[in-house]
């Protein structure tokens, strides 16, 4: 069972970054969140996310919260 299946939440960071042609490093610089934490989020290993992180990422990617986080198949 994957991490997303465990938490029930899938983070679409990878897809959103690809659509915008942005790298994780660039996003890290823009939102001020460490590369390690963004990798945790991208790989669905995060168990919780701060509102400030969520809003910063959504602003940087110009997306809605629902586009970034979706329910994972259990």
């Amino acid at each position: 069972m994957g991490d997303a299946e465990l938490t029930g939440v899938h983070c679409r960071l990878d897809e959103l970054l690809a659509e915008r042609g942005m790298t994780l490093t660039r996003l890290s610089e823009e939102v001020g969140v460490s590369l390690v934490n963004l990798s945790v989020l991208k790989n669905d290993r995060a168990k919780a996310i701060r509102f400030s992180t969520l809003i910063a990422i959504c602003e940087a990617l110009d997306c809605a919260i629902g586009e970034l986080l979706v329910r994972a198949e259990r």
Partner: protein
Amino acid sequence: MSDTSTFERTTERGILYAVGTGALLVGAAAVLLGGTQLIVDAVADAVPLRLEVDHALPGGVGGGTATLIEGAYDSAAVTASGLSAGVVTLLTIARAFELLTTAAVAWSVAWLAWKLLRGRPFAASVANALATAGASLLIGGLLSQGLGGFGAWVAIEELLGDVSPEADPFFPLVMAFDPAPLGFGLATLLIAIAFERGRRLQQDTEGLV
């Protein structure tokens, strides 16, 4: 700023290494040297005892510019031979509890220092180690003092024969009780609870981005 934090980090690590190593040495000495001494004393029939004494100081003490107003002996360190097997066993067990308590406390201090060095102080093993140390202090403190005190009483009877108050024995049948180990034990248990709470808090924030 960076120099200060580097200095602080180095000092902190130095203190942790010193405390951890010191605790390990104390624990090892308690088990190895203390344990060996315990066996040697029991086999050689030379049991060290600390007995209560209630006698005034001998006359003629003094001679300097200050004056001794009052004073008394309160304990005597003696070595007894020819004690019955039961007494020797009691006293040996009491000393063994003392050594085990020392070893348990030293081990938990060393483990805490090691986990602090690794940057993971709020681990379940640290809370368990501290709880073990606290319980050891409580149980070991009670048993070593209780068994040691009772053993000393029987030893006094075997050493002096008549121990009735009328005979005014040199070593009266009194038992000194030191509440310090119990206090330290309770304090250590409280610290163990704090570490357990810290562990749960840390667990709650794991995976938080």
